[in-house]
């Protein structure tokens, strides 16, 4: 009997033990979830934590802890977040993510300062001929590549000819270097060299352009004109994975997670205190990482903007606001009914309540636009006569159109692209026009590639898009978008007077006269309303108070040359 009974207690004990282990695992898992959720609620309600205020650093005005807080010495190791580049070959850059790094690793004859003025870089000065077609650049004597070799006028000539070589397949060389005599022949494979770039001696280069063009210097600041080292470029097709330039920073490492740049000690101009800068790639929650001290600066997105700008939040002392060079707009196809009727366009413009959209929908991350040029762009006109929001006048304008009112309008399709938020914005616009004008818009949402194809083929009737400047010159907005023969004129707008003003401005050498011409053209375009300019962009970036001189440029990239540690 005992033999038969014995196994029972023995069997029961391991069974219990085993179940208990399982239960323990489970309980821990449940408790972590349940307690943590409850705990957070308690911590917050009891004032133990406020997001953004955790572990305040002793006796500093800063609101959040430091990632790489400078200790004693001034050498700074910055941690920032940015998108990974698609290329580090300056001839190929066509996106701002790549420009972020290329602008730091390379340099050209001229560059832009924080206020978007053209300033000397490799060229210390230049002369322009009286007819405005010949530029003579005098180069500095102390320009070195990251590999230690001295850069000369020959290197510039090589770089331009390499960018224009059809084998390079640069998507942008034609747009930025096409003004130079002989560049198009080289691009088309009809000439071995670019005739208009002549090396007079090691430190002098002469560039001849086809016709006087006041924006030429501004175009030269684009990466396509940056200097590359021949021996590096010819070392193999993936040379740009280990780029060598003449810029203020050199590449230390680049992998799937980050890019690390370090100071170029033989850079020809004084630099700030940045020793290294690490750009962490993409995604995540930059503001949260900033608050946790994992980043030294962070862009603020729409999701965080209200919280960060709240005066009760100490973070709002650390926000920098930068106007960006872009304009978001509603565009009309002015060759198709009903928007070939200027009164219909005007009615829609009068019915657009930009202020309400900027405040409510974009939570102040956009500034309502009056004209086409963004503030910060040379030639921005603060006194422009904008079309105001005026529902009564809007209805009158629609009555005065050849349709005589909303009921006779043909079907109108508003085409948008992108994900959820864009859709919500399109609904907002449609709701606004229905409320004010009684017009029902159909919204069509298509993916980006389809949208671009339809846009470039002038198949869209009404669309919403943003335009950002590639170089700080009003030409880059007004001529590209509204000259009747411009490839990028998506609305089909054509006005002889506007064309005349733009052409005159293109060659005018006196800056004040030139900008005045652009302002005249802009006013005429705004009155004609092929666009309803909606908003200009604003960048909000958090910058730790222990840094001085860290700026975001109007093109949305970090300006790191003048960064220094703040003295306490």
């Amino acid at each position, binding site marked *: 009997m005992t033999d038969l009974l014995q196994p029972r207690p023995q069997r029961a004990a391991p069974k219990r033990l085993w179940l208990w282990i399982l239960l323990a695992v489970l309980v821990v898992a*449940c408790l972590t979830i349940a307690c943590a959720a409850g705990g957070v609620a308690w911590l917050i309600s009891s004032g133990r934590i406020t997001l953004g205020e*955790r572990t305040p650093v002793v006796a500093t005005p800063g609101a959040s802890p430091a990632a790489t807080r400078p200790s004693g010495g001034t050498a700074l190791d910055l941690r920032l977040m940015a998108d990974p580049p698609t290329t580090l070959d300056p001839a*190929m850059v066509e996106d701002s993510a790549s420009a972020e790094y290329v602008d730091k690793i390379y340099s050209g004859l001229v560059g832009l300062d924080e206020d978007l003025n053209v300033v000397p870089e490799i060229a210390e000065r230049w002369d322009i001929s009286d007819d405005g077609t010949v530029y003579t650049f005098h180069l500095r004597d102390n320009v070195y590549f990251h590999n230690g070799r001295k850069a000369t006028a020959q290197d510039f000539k090589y770089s331009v000819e390499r960018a224009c070589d059809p084998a390079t*397949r640069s998507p942008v060389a034609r747009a930025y270097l096409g003004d130079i005599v002989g560049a198009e022949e080289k691009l088309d494979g009809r000439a071995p060299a670019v005739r208009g770039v002549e090396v007079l001696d090691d430190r002098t280069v002469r560039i001849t352009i086809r016709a006087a063009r006041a924006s030429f210097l501004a175009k030269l600041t684009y990466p396509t004109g940056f200097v590359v080292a021949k021996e590096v470029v010819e070392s193999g097709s993936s040379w740009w994975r280990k780029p060598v330039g003449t810029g203020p920073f050199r590449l230390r490492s680049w992998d799937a997670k980050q890019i690390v740049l370090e100071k170029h000690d033989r850079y020809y101009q004084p630099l700030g205190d940045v020793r290294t800068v690490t750009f*962490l790639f993409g*995604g*995540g929650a930059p503001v949260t990482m900033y608050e946790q001290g994992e980043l030294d600066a962070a862009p603020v997105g729409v999701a965080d903007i209200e919280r960060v700008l709240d005066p009760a939040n100490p973070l709002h002392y650390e926000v920098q606001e930068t106007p960006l060079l872009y304009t978001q707009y509603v565009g009309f196809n002015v060759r198709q009914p009903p928007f070939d009727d200027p009164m219909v366009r005007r009615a829609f413009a009068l019915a657009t309540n930009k202020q309400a959209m900027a405040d409510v929908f974009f939570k102040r991350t956009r500034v309502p636009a009056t004209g086409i040029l963004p503030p910060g762009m040379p030639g921005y006109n603060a006194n422009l006569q904008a079309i105001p929001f005026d529902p009564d006048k809007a209805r009158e304008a629609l009555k005065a159109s050849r349709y005589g009112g909303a009921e006779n309008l043909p079907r109108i399709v508003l085409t948008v692209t992108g994900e959820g938020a864009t859709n919500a914005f399109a609904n907002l616009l449609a709701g606004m026009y229905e409320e004010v004008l009684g017009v029902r818009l159909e919204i069509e949402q298509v993916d980006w590639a389809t949208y671009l194809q339809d846009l*470039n083929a002038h198949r869209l009737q009404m669309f919403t898009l943003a335009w950002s400047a590639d170089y700080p010159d009003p030409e880059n907005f007004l001529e590209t978008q509204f000259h009747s023969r411009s490839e990028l004129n998506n609305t089909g707008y054509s006005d002889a007077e506007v064309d005349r003003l733009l052409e005159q401005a293109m060659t005018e050498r006196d800056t004040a006269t030139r900008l005045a011409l652009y302002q005249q053209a802009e006013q005429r375009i705004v009155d004609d309303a092929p666009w309803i300019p909606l908003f200009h962009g604003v960048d909000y970036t958090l910058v730790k108070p222990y840094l001085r001189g860290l700026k975001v440029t109007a093109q949305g990239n970090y300006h790191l040359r003048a960064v220094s540690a703040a003295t306490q």
Partner: protein
Amino acid sequence: MLRYIVRRLLWMIPVLLFISIVTFALSHAVPGGPFDREKKLPPEVVANLEKYYGLDKPLYQQYLNYIGNIVTKFDFGPSMRQRGRTVNEIFADHLPISAQLGVLALLVALVIGIPLGIVAALKQNTFWDYLGMGIAVFGVSVPNIVLGPLLIWIFALALGWFPVAGWGKPSQMVLPSIALGLGSSAIIGRLTRASMLQVIREDYIRTARAKGLTERVIMVRHALKNAFIPVATVLGPMFAALTTGTFVVEQIFAIPGMGKYFITSVTNRDYAVVMGTTLLYAVFLVIANLAVDITYAFLDPRIRYT
């Protein structure tokens, strides 16, 4: 068994060819191309680029070249968006990271899901069952786009145990693995429970009990092993889905994995990358399913492959 595996591997060839043809045809059939830009490129530039990438050739020619390069050189072609980068390089840089994350998430799913299911089954219709299945319903219902930020908020911000984002250090791997694995753990948990409930009512379990085996041996060797078959079935596709990149979790935690290439390649009409990511997923799926089929034989001796 070996013959079976070889036959299955050979079957992969027509399967992958079929997938590649469909993907290739679809990606070229949708409007738009890799060189459509907001700032329209001049036609000469587009023509030059299309010639270089072979897009000016007839479609069947392009397809044959593509497959030819894979077969002869294992070259999946160049990315048309990230100039100078090849699809092989994109895989080499980003796939290991996604695979790490996926394997960890799968471990999380198993470690939480299986015990949860077993306890719920053994304690059917008790508090423990309801609690376990409550957690499972929570896990399935809360998408990782919510769970990710929630975990960050609790464990990175409030408690400060883990960093907010990033990848590389072990401490950075905890939250994303949980965010990605919890949903799958709920599926595994429910499946384990249902299958355990069925198995413990089987005759052979009663026989085992009658033989006087310990409860532990009955559960581990007889019940769990058999109950694991349906779980193993879902593990195959789950493995493929988790390890080839997950857009949402990788974005939330700033992990440089494959996930975003699945999305952006389609948006950008980056044909070679679309093909590459699709084939990658297909290969993972087919191999994972094969592995599942092989494990069946170990789980249930009645299953034999010839």
